[in-house]
């Protein structure tokens, strides 16, 4: 979902959107694309200003088949051919994201000054766009945390612990909700972690995503943590709860 689409200076939207697949909306408001039909795209004429900016909310459900979904932005000339970029011939994207993890990276490309546009004229030079990722919000002060004791499974050699997160605020906490373990003691690793924090500091802390989409005031959700700890020492950690769109 693209929102907050802005053209600085004298720039602006011109004409009606052209869509294919499962796409709707307009650059003058918001654009929604899904992979329900492929390819899904929206193209719409615009008059460039100094800077083009927009906000992207991208779901990151990884395909099980091995070929990831992809999102890209290109700027087309009047022949509907992408302006050459450093992404290379056949791609010529300005921004490209392959959804190959729950926290995929974004590749941004500058104008390719060695190739001329299909519509003619000299090569077009522009800088690669800046991509800023929005981190998930820290809602630790809006929840209460209850931990069970640890129980050891002699077969799997894993310690299990149930952690319950309760929304102690008066407002709904948006999903997805991630439980982050900061300062996890060195004797243990979180065996069922989804990943480690890469956006919301402190970075490098393991986290697990709860099944709850969101939490209404007073509602709770539980998650089972599984620790690997060959030393069988007591595991300690601090909790942090992240919520909403954006990378943990």
């Amino acid at each position, binding site marked *: 979902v693209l929102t907050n689409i802005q053209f600085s200076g004298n720039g602006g939207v011109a004409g009606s959107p052209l869509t294919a697949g499962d796409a709707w909306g307009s650059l003058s408001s918001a654009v929604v694309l899904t992979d329900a039909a492929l390819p899904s795209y929206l193209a719409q004429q615009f008059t460039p200003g100094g800077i083009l900016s927009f906000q992207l909310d991208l779901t990151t459900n990884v395909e099980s088949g091995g070929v990831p979904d992809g999102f890209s932005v290109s700027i087309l000339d009047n022949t509907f051919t992408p302006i050459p970029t450093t992404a290379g011939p056949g791609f010529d994207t300005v921004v490209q994201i392959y959804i190959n993890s729950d926290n995929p990276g974004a590749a941004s490309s500058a104008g390719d000054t060695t190739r001329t546009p299909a519509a003619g004229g000299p090569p077009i030079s522009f800088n690669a766009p800046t991509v800023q990722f929005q981190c998930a919000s820290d809602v630790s002060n809006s929840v209460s*945390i209850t*931990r*069970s*004791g*640890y*129980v*050891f*499974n*002699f*077969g*799997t050699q*894993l*310690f*299990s*612990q*149930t952690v319950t997160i309760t929304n102690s605020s008066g407002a709904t906490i948006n999903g997805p909700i991630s439980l982050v373990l900061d300062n996890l003691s060195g004797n243990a690793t979180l065996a069922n972690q989804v990943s480690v924090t890469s956006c919301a500091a402190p970075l490098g802390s393991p986290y697990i995503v709860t099944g709850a989409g969101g939490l209404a005031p007073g509602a709770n959700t539980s998650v*089972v943590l*599984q620790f690997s700890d060959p030393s*069988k*020492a*007591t595991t*300690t950690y601090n909790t942090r709860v992240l919520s909403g769109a954006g990378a943990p």
Partner: protein
Amino acid sequence: MKTLFTSLFVPLLCAVLPKGARADVVFTVDLNTTPLVTDLADQPFSLAFQLLQGDPANATNTATIGDFMLGGGSAAPCPSNCTTFGNESGDATSAIHLSTADSFEALIQTFTPGSSLSFTVDLTTHPNSGVAPDAFAFSILDSSLFPIPTQDPTGADSLLSVFINSTNPAILTYATDPTTLTHAGNISLTMGPPTITAAVTTVPEPGSFALLGTALACVGIGALRFRLHGRGARISPTRRSRK
């Protein structure tokens, strides 16, 4: 000085004494183990008891498991048929002692199942002030030392677990999970959850019987003091007159 002792120290001592008491939960566990008797693919089975520290900075809890009855079965003798963790002591032929003085104390002991299994658990219940409670758990392991699959939602496959988060914690029991095959025998086992006969009680510390005697002495001293206090009021002027 005697008046000072009886006026200040004795009441203070008596006020402190009740803190010597501790809370325990004492309960009996009964389990129908008949399905294990015919499950030759997973034998030999083992009993597995564990007591885990939730927070190293907190008070020690202990578990004593005894009064074993195996319904015609038997527990194999230790140490050759046992694996211990931490400072665990004892075994299922007599009584098992676990404590949270170590982070992890456990006993695995091979046994031959009979028609039933029962034992008594005496568990102290000092809740941790820290973030995670101490925990006691019981499971039955197959010959590969994997626990028989149960409906324990944590995935630990315990038949019974207690999280010591209060002086009277819940005793959680789970039936086996017939939808998950055993690790060694690759078969489905159907067994109901253990039956718990709980006797939630406050038990004095072992040394508290001595304390109890002291407390009774306090009462006696208090009574004596009452008498002396009354008599002293009359004799004090006499003492002062002797100076």
